[in-house]
Each structure stands twice: as structure tokens, then as C-alpha cells.
């Protein structure tokens, strides 16, 4: 069943929400500026509720099932987080209120900064970046500002391993750097020799994801970081995979200089069908003054009687703002709640079980699916979704076929260094029963691939809609709908 658009549901003159009549004398409107037409749909409240309920039923979600999307950390989003973010005391505060009226917000932000520092080992944190990609941008701009501040202008390159997220090279480019790719070795690590030969005084830094996008811990991470540092470069850590490291290792200890943290992955804030995210950036002390400001700090220490007074601090050599106001405060409330209920032991357990679940699935699938870099993985792993003796079946087909079994597909065709990659991240919040059901289905699909390949090629069979014509979408480019009366014109 396709659901009509809100434009198709519109009826001219229908009103969904009433507003009061003006209780003040009317002012004259500047007629030459007033808009003549406003081609928006007109629905009742019930129209709207039903429409979006119908749409919601067309979505797969964590709340409805297993979502093993590699690199996305689709863990359970606890309901208490949602309640806390909606507390009127938080939700109804204006970002420009005098600080004495929002000490609750500032206390929460300050504590969150402190927690993130402790978890990652860094010395300073900005909560401002809106998402991971913006965290990366912030980080690379700090690298740039740092070198510039030292008059070191010859550094024009950022090194990016070939297993990196697409955001890494994109970020480097938009920050004005040339991107140099570093290959991986046969164990899935950064190729140390290649790195060594590339590192010179034109290298501003390295963007490294650890565990990398193969789900593997960089076994030489300390050495990798040492090599970059020796060449005068900095190491940026892509925090997308932090869910494997809570209480396991602190990135700062491993030699990273700067890192972003995805609150919407590791710290359970919901993905919202594409956002909002939140991408705080943590740095070692040397880079603190380059952070975008303002940052929350203690203005007056508290004592036994009085709580501390919090305020804002403006870093002296800041790269500048990366967004308005203070970042995604609502996401901070959720992440703070999440960290608070876990504590140190709980967070370690998160990573332990995330890694346990990934290795368990890997163990169950190994033998049926080819594992290109086969060793103990961290929170995710990558297999090939293709078999030499099942020609014509691709990773995409495996992915689509999973939908018929009520599972969301894994990430596919990433990382690029694996042929027909299927990247599987189960997260720690899934039960063994769910993992077993998924593994059983994956094995069954492998069997189907060999015996009834058309089942895969034409999958999904059970979704509200079949595979969509993406070429047509890009070619005809219908990007919005219009009211019937607009279309007539």
C-alpha cells in the first residue's frame, strides 16, 4: 500500500490547529511585501496523525528489529533518555538566557565534557559539533590552525588509510588539504612501510579509525601514531568506532591527538532516521585553545554549601564557531543519562559485549561466508557477500533477501577494500537469541544463493515496495510534490 502525500490529502479550507485571535490592536501590513499565495497543504489533526502513523509503519527501526548496520552502532536507545531530554526544565530553555538562569544546563554540559575526557583520555572537549562529519571538520581545522600557529606552512597533505570512512577524505578536502591514501596490509592494519615512506614534512596529519572499518584493532597503532608524530604530523582519531573501546583503551593513551565522538552511536542517542547527531571533539592539552568556543567551565568552585557556578570560556586561538549556540543540547542530555546509568564498569561491559556479539556472529558465519581478514574482531566485522560458485548473486542481493526474514541488512559495499563487502555490527544490546536467529538466516541465505539464486536476485519479496528504480530517480529528479491546483497551472 502506498500512502498518499500530505499534498494529496489536502482539502482547501481545512484547518488542523486553531490559534487565538489577536488580543492587541492590529498593525498595518506592508502590502507590497505581503505574500499573495501560500501553496501549502490543509489537513485535519487526524489526517496528520494517521498519515504519519502509516508512514511510520513503513519503516524498519531498532525498536522493531535487529539492525546490524556496520559502522553505525545501531544500539538500543533507552526510553529514559527520551524522557530526560523532554523535561520542561531542559526543553524550554533559550540558548541565550543569562547563565545564572541555566546553571542546570551548564552543569550537565560541564559534567559531560568531564566524562568524555575521562573516557577518551583527552584533556579538553567541545560539545559544539553537530555530528561526526562536523567533528572531523573541526578536528582537521584544528590541525590546520595548529601548524599555522607555528608558522609551519608547508604541510599540505592529510594521510587517510584506504579503509577509512568516506567522510575522512571529504573532510580533508574541504579543509583545504590534499588527500594521500595509505594502503592496508594483509592483516588489515595500516601498511607501516607505506606510512613510513609517505611521512614527511608536508604531512599535516593522519586520520585514523581504530578499530578500523574492517572492525579490526590497529595492532601497530602506537607505532603508527609515533611515525606520524615524528614527521611532525598530528593524528586525528575518527571516533565512529568508539563503541569497541569504552574502558578497553583510551585513544589519547594510544597516541591520538584529536578525536570526535559520535554521541548518536556510542552514547545511544537515537539516529532519528538520519539525524540529529552530535559530534563532540576531544583534544590533548596542546590543542585546547584551538577549539571552537564557547566551552563550559567552572567560574567559581563550589563548596559543601554551594554548588559551583558554571559559565563559558572562549578559547584564545579558536578555529571559530562551527555552529550556532552550544551544540545539540538535547543529545547531550541523552548521552549524559546514558553515561550516568553505566559508570565505569557498565561502559566497559558495553564494549566487551559489543565485541563478544560481533565475534560470536563471526564465528557462526565463518566457513559459509568468506572472511577476508580473519582474526578476532572488535565491535564489527566484514565478510564477502559473494561466492565464486554462485555467480550472479551479489552482496546487495544478500542484503535485500535479509528483509524477507525481517532483518535490516548490514552495511554493504563498504569498506571498499573488501570485495562485495557485508559489514556487520550487532551491538551489545542484542540477545544471543536474536544473534542466533540472524546467523541461521544468513546461513540459509547462503544456501539459497547456491540453490535458488532468483530468490535473492528478486528480493525483497515481502516489503511494502520492491527494489526501486534509482536511475529513474536521478534522471527525472522529482524532488517535491505540489498541490493539485499548482500542478494544473
Amino acid at each position, binding site marked *: 500500500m502506498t500512502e498518499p502525500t*500530505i499534498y494529496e490529502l489536502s482539502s482547501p479550507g481545512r484547518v*488542523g490547529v486553531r*490559534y487565538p485571535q489577536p488580543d492587541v490592536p492590529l*498593525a498595518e*501590513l506592508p502590502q507590497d511585501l505581503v*505574500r499573495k499565495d501560500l501553496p*501549502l*497543504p490543509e489537513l485535519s489533526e487526524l489526517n496528520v496523525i494517521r498519515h504519519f*502513523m502509516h*508512514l511510520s*509503519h*513503513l*519503516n*524498519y*527501526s531498532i525498536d522493531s528489529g535487529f539492525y546490524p*548496520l556496520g559502522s553505525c552502532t545501531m544500539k538500543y536507545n533507552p526510553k529514559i533518555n*527520551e*524522557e*530526560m531530554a523532554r523535561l*520542561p*526544565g531542559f526543553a*524550554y*530553555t*533559550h*540558548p541565550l538566557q543569562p547563565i545564572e538562569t*541555566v546553571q*542546570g544546563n551548564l552543569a550537565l554540559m560541564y559534567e559531560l565534557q568531564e566524562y568524555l575526557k575521562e573516557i577518551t583520555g583527552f584533556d579538553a572537549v567541545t560539545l559544539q559539533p553537530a555530528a561526526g562529519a562536523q567533528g572531523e571538520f573541526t578536528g582537521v581545522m584544528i590541525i*590546520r590552525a595548529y601548524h599555522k600557529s607555528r608558522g609551519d606552512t608547508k604541510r599540505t597533505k592529510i594521510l587517510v588509510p584506504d579503509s577509512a570512512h568516506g*567522510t575522512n*577524505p*571529504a573532510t*580533508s578536502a574541504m579543509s583545504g588539504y590534499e588527500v594521500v591514501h595509505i594502503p592496508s596490509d594483509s592483516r588489515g592494519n595500516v601498511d607501516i612501510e607505506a606510512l613510513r615512506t609517505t611521512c614527511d614534512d608536508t604531512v599535516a596529519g593522519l586520520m585514523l579509525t581504530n578499530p578500523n572499518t574492517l572492525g*579490526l584493532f590497529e595492532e601497530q597503532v602506537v607505532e603508527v601514531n609515533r611515525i606520524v608524530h615524528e614527521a611532525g604530523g598530528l593524528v586525528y582519531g575518527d571516533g565512529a568506532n568508539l563503541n569497541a573501546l569504552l574502558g578497553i583503551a583510551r585513544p589519547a593513551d594510544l597516541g591520538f591527538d584529536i578525536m570526535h565522538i559520535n554521541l548518536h552511536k556510542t552514547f545511544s542517542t537515537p539516529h*532519528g532516521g*538520519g539525524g*540529529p547527531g552530535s559530534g563532540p571533539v576531544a583534544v590533548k592539552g596542546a590543542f585546547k585553545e584551538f577549539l571552537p568556543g564557547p566551552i563550559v567551565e567552572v567560574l567559581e568552585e563550589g563548596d559543601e554549601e554551594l554548588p559551583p557556578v558554571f559559565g563559558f570560556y572562549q578559547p584564545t586561538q579558536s578555529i*571559530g*564557531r562551527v555552529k*550556532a549556540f552550544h*551544540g545539540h543540547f538535547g543529545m547531550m542530555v541523552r548521552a549524559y*543519562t546514558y*553515561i550516568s*546509568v553505566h*559508570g565505569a564498569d557498565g561502559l566497559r561491559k*558495553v564494549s*566487551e559485549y559489543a565485541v*563478544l556479539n560481533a565475534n560470536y556472529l563471526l564465528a557462526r558465519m565463518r566457513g559459509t561466508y568468506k572472511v577476508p581478514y580473519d582474526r578476532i574482531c572488535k565491535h564489527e566485522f566484514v565478510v564477502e557477500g559473494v561466492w565464486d560458485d554462485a555467480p550472479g548473486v551479489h552482496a546487495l542481493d544478500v542484503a535485500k533477501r535479509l528483509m524477507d526474514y525481517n532483518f535490516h541488512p548490514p552495511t554493504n559495499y563498504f569498506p571498499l577494500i573488501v570485495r562485495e563487502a557485508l559489514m556487520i555490527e550487532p551491538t*551489545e544490546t542484542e*540477545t544471543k537469541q536474536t544473534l542466533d536467529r540472524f546467523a541461521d538466516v544468513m546461513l540459509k541465505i547462503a544456501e539459497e544463493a547456491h540453490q535458488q539464486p532468483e530468490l535473492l536476485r528478486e528480493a*525483497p519479496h515481502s516489503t511494502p*515496495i*520492491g*527494489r*526501486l528504480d534509482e536511475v*529513474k530517480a536521478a534522471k*527525472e*529528479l522529482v*524532488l517535491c*510534490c*505540489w498541490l493539485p491546483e499548482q500542478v494544473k497551472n
Partner: protein
Amino acid sequence: MYTPHTDSEREEMLKVIGVPSIESLFEDVPAEYRFPRLNLPEPLTEMEVAAQLQELASINETTRDLICFLGAGAYNHYVPAAVDAILRRGEFYTAYTPYQPEVSQGTLQAIFEYQSLIANLTGMDASNASHYDGATATAEAAVLAYHHFRGKRTRFVVSPSVNPQYRAVLRTYMNGYENLEVIGDDTNHPFATVEDLLPLVDPNTALVVVQYPDFFGRVQDLTRFAQKVHEAGALLAVVVNPLALALFKSPGEMGADIACGEGQPLGIPLSYGGPYLGIFATKKDYVRKMAGRLVGETTDKEGRRGYVLTLTAREQHIRREKATSNICTNQGLMALAATVYMSLLGKTGLRQVAELCYHKAHYTAQQINQIPGFEVDLKAPFFHEFVVKCPDSVEEINEYLLDNGILGGYDLGNDYPHLKNHMLLAVTEMNTREDIEILCEALKEYSHD
């Protein structure tokens, strides 16, 4: 905690993996850094954390406790209950980016509808699926213009009456490129008009950025200005308050190439500044240069209508360093909120809210203008925000107002050295006439004291 394994399940799983313990899964981590002891507070149960956060939240004074006249980029509007009822549906908020369209039509169609509403509201041909906020959307306008001219035009002219934080972000983004100049926003001439910008627009100008209503609340017809900008071959980006567009001519109608801005007024709670919603819409010619996600309509094999992410070839996960932007996450759930809000209010409701803001703001401005020591420029058309010249420092006046239960306006001296003692006041449908009178009484008392 949300890890469900029982001890016996854990042991079974370890056995299948073939390792003796969970610790042995981490032998690839350098031993000296392995298993650090994190110094975090003891874990709280849900019951305890709820109490703790209720306590923290209760320390704040809110726009429900105070009468709010603060705006400056974030506005206190009423959000109908139906908006959050939909946002709370797990199917929406716990879904990921709709990369798998067969199981994501809910998100995809909602974004498609969002794009439609924004395109209609701004008078543009197409909207993207949203940016982080108004500031980054404005910066992305500059990025688009940079790429449109392939870096060959290096001047970006920005009005001083563009939100100061947006200008700051635009500058940060432009810092990634060499040899660009961002000019025009000399804050010593805060009230410069768009006409004052024209002399700066030369054949090397990639983009001109103005705000509408501007940071001071003023509304001005940009049609002739747009012509002039186009005569110089530059693009025109207009930073909008989408709610104002229910009442005033759209940027599309006036000839703008890009409409960007902050979508928070469309049903998104203040939430201390975020998450909000970056609006970005443009004309046909620039659609393929626009950053961020796009949803397009198409069909499946059986001809059923469906929606997919489209033009993904522009994006980082395909183009990597050749992508026009590193954007990955958007503000999907906030775009959904705005979609539901606009659907609920519709044509009539949105216009009505805009008019309420307009009339109440004008009434307030007139009343304040009559208070000795306070002055408002009532000549230039404005929407729901206006500048009040005060007899004293804004900080002091605001302290006085706060003591009277009023959240006063924004201190323009923060951003404009020439606007010490100037306050920016916002009035919305949430302010009753009684609220306005309480404000005026307080200002009168202040001016007597």
C-alpha cells in the same frame, strides 16, 4: 544497563568463538593501555538518574516560568502536542538514514514531503533533506557558490545584519579554502542596508548573503537587489526565518538563488539551542551542487510509487575527497518535526501564527517607544523582532526584568560595538497582551528608578 546476556549465555558464546574469556578478545590492544580504570561516578539506576536530572532541570528557569522576549535566532513558539506524539514513535526516531529504501519508505516519504513544503514556502525549486542548523546551512550556501564558480570567484559579500553566529560559522567554513575574502559585514555599520552592500559586489563576487527578516527583524523587498547581484554574475543567498515566509514574499519570488535558514520556529522546542534544523533550498540550476541528502520520487518494478535517496553520487561516501561536502548526518527527526508542524498548521495556521507575531510585536514596539528613555525605529517594516535603544546597559535592564519574571531581549552590544545599550526584542504568539503590558510596566518602572 542494556546488555542482556546472562552468565550462561556469555559462556556458551565464548565457547562457540573458541576463547576462554571476554578479556582474551582484547589481546590485540597494547597491554600497557588495556583496561584503564575510568574515574567516573558510580552507576545510577534509572530511578536515580531520573531523580538527578529532574533536579538539574529544576535548577533552570524556563520560558514557561518566565515571560520570554528573547529571540535572536531561536524563538519561543507553541508546538502542538501532535508533533511530539509522532516524533516519539520508535519507528521514526530509532531508524537510521534510509539507505535501504524498501524498509525506509516512512522516513523517505516524510523527507520528500519536507522538501516539498520547504520548496513551496521559500519559492524555490528544490530543498535538500536539511542541514545541521541555520548557521551551517548559511555556510553551505557559500560552499555551493564556491563550487559553482569552481573557486574562481573569491569574494563573499555578507551583510552585517546576518546573524552574527551564522557569519562566524561561514567564516570558519571558508577558512578551509585559500585566498577567499569574506567582506561587507562591518559591524561598525550594523544597520547598513542591502543597497549599501552593492558597491562591494564585483565580478569576482561569488555570493552575496543577506538575511530576511534580518537579524534586527527588518523586512525589505529584495527583488531589485537580486537583479543587481545577478547583473554582477554573483549568486544571492537569503537567510530566512521560515515562519516569516508565511506572511512575506518568498525569496524565490524576489529572485534569490538560495534560501537557507533556521527551521527551529517550525515546531522545534528551544532546547537550549539544539538540535535545530538547517533549511536549504535552491533553484533548479544549482540542485546538483547542493550538499546534503536529497530524496527523489521513483517507482519499483511493478510501477508502485516510492522514494529513494538520490544524486548520492555527490556525497562523501561515494565521491570521498571529491565530494562537495563531508555531510553525512542530517537533521532527519527535526525535519520530520517541521513537516508535521507545517502539515498541522497548514496554509491557514502558518499564516495566522505569522500574523499574530507581527501584530503583537508591533503593538509591543509602539508601547515601548512611548516609554521615556526607550526608543524604537517604527518606520522600517519589521516582522516579530525589533531593536530598542535603551537608556542604560542592556545587562542591567535585563537583570531588572528577570527580577520581575521577564526574560529580556538580546544584548546587541555583544556583537556590534556601536550598539551598546541596544536590545533586540522578539514577540511571538506565545506573548499575551498581558505579558506585553507587564514588560512595559517593568520598563517604565525601570526608567523611573
